[in-house]
């Protein structure tokens, strides 16, 4: 049997020696922080124009993560490329010849890439939060307030989980192009649109991104949103269930198909 630490070490080398890792992760960080900061500044300046309901449920923590909508796409790209380039480059055959225990190979890869994505996600959420609160000034909050730390850590976990979900989906589809073609429109358009459509939103609520992002809210029904049937941790739990399903699906495909 292959030695797991050796395989983890090898997967770490794979990740740190391709440039796509650096640019996707920098993108995820920069886009999230920049867009969140811009929205915080904008909302702070136009606070009086908000509806009464929105003002009453103003959630400074959630607002400081508004860039996640866009930044998560870079996390999707990171997750897709980590797995997908094995297929597009033909490296998968070499990798499997070196580590024929397919589960060990896939789970090592996802562990290394997942931990990296989680670390970058947490870094992004903390920087985004502090910068956002600074820009919100008096309307801001701080880490010590109720549930705020949970939301900030949760926002970081959310970013990492999105990347891991993408890795699982790509392992199932075995193609970077196909995975990007499905995941990017899904997270950026389909999910965002359906959540605003009556009836459709009752289903869309259980999508991984919609459920998972509940953890970033501190104020219930923040910014005039609908009440949801699950709390923040249950929402994250739903997202984790999606991630586990995707990774398991990826494992089954890798295990059973010809490379």
């Amino acid at each position, binding site marked *: *049997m292959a030695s797991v630490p050796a395989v983890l070490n090898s997967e770490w080398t794979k990740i740190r020696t*391709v440039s796509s890792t650096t640019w996707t992760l920098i993108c995820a960080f920069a886009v999230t922080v920049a867009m969140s900061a811009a929205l915080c500044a904008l909302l702070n300046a136009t606070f009086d124009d908000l509806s009464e309901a929105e003002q009453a449920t103003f959630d400074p923590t959630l607002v400081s993560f508004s860039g996640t909508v866009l930044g998560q796409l870079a996390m999707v790209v990171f997750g897709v490329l980590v797995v997908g380039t094995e297929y597009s480059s033909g490296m998968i055959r070499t990798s*499997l010849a*070196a580590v024929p225990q397919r589960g060990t190979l896939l789970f090592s890869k996802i562990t290394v890439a997942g931990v990296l994505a989680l670390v970058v996600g947490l870094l992004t959420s903390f920087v985004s939060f502090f910068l956002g609160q600074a820009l919100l000034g008096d309307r801001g909050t701080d880490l010590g307030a109720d549930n705020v730390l949970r939301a900030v850590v949760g926002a970081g976990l959310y970013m990492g989980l999105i990347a891991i979900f993408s890795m699982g989906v790509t392992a199932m589809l075995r193609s970077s192009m196909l995975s990007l073609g499905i995941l990017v429109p899904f997270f950026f358009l389909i999910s965002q649109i359906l959540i605003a459509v009556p009836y459709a939103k009752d289903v869309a609520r259980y999508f991984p991104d919609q459920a998972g992002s509940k953890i970033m809210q501190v104020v219930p029904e923040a910014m005039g949103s609908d009440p949801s049937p699950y709390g923040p941790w249950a929402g994250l739990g739903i997202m984790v269930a999606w991630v586990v399903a995707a990774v398991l699906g990826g494992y089954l495909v890798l295990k059973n198909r010809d490379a």
Partner: protein
Amino acid sequence: MIELEGLTKRFGSKVAVDHLTCQVRPGMVTGFLGPNGAGKSTTMRMMLDLDNPTSGTVRIDGKHYHELQEPLKYIGALLDAKSMHGGRSAYNNLLCLAQSNRIPSSRVDEVLDTVGLSGVAKKKSKGFSLGMGQRLGIASALLGDPEILMFDEPVNGLDPEGIHWIRNLMKALAAEGRTIFVSSHLMSEMALTADHLIVIGQGRLLADTSMADFIHENSRSYVRLRSPQQERLRDVLHQEGFTAVEADGGTLEIDGATTEELGELAARHQVVLHELSSQRASLEEAFMQMTAGSVEYHAHSGPGGAEPPPTVGAGWGEGWQQPGGTAAPGTTAPGTTTPGSVDGTENKGA
């Protein structure tokens, strides 16, 4: 030792490998021959556990591939398709493989040096030429210093110097007692490298024989004569009991005679000779005849196109004969060490 037993692979209704049973033994180069689509690459992928056999098994020293501990130290393989990440440098591509099997990183430098890629070790492999990519693949096969090496068409894309190098490398590795399994379409290439031959066509085993036996059975040697006094020469030969067959270009071909005999005979009868040469028929033709029934992808000869392969029973046309050194019996191609190898079989006529 690699043992294949009833190995079968179906892709839908297409049978790519059909009940293949054979062994690949240590200490020699085993050539794995077959026309395009014969199932060579598929067989090799099944040996590495990359493709699941429909039925049958592969055992490597009695074990399944996935039971091997750190397999790169056991068996190294060069596959036919590209199998490295282009965005990573040659060095780093090999480093990840080495680390996964706990091979020291110093070995990466060693194999890069062996294949002559030290100078471009830090370059991204996507910029590599076909031959450089092939060398990188060979380096990855050598990485774990394995006892078994498998090469799928290693000469593909290599320059003549590279071809010469890989031939010698394979022979040297076999001489160290390792098992070398190499696929090719070219009989002539195998004649120069392999000690044993496994021939398949449409996934089925066609031959499993030593190279020497194959050459013995399939290569016909004869003497070619050309003379301005052809009629007289024929009479003389006839009187002495030789059977001369008239071939293209007004030459005569005589089986079972030596150049010495015929030269002296001509001198005795004062017949002028313009050519007296010993000839070997191409092993390529023997291979083509063997696989003729199982070639799937025939080229159609258009204007100036290639001739279709000869069918069984076709004559030994001029195009398949090899020019040996004039009046130099037993000449062999430079660099040839395999006993009984054919001269100049690469210069197959079009």
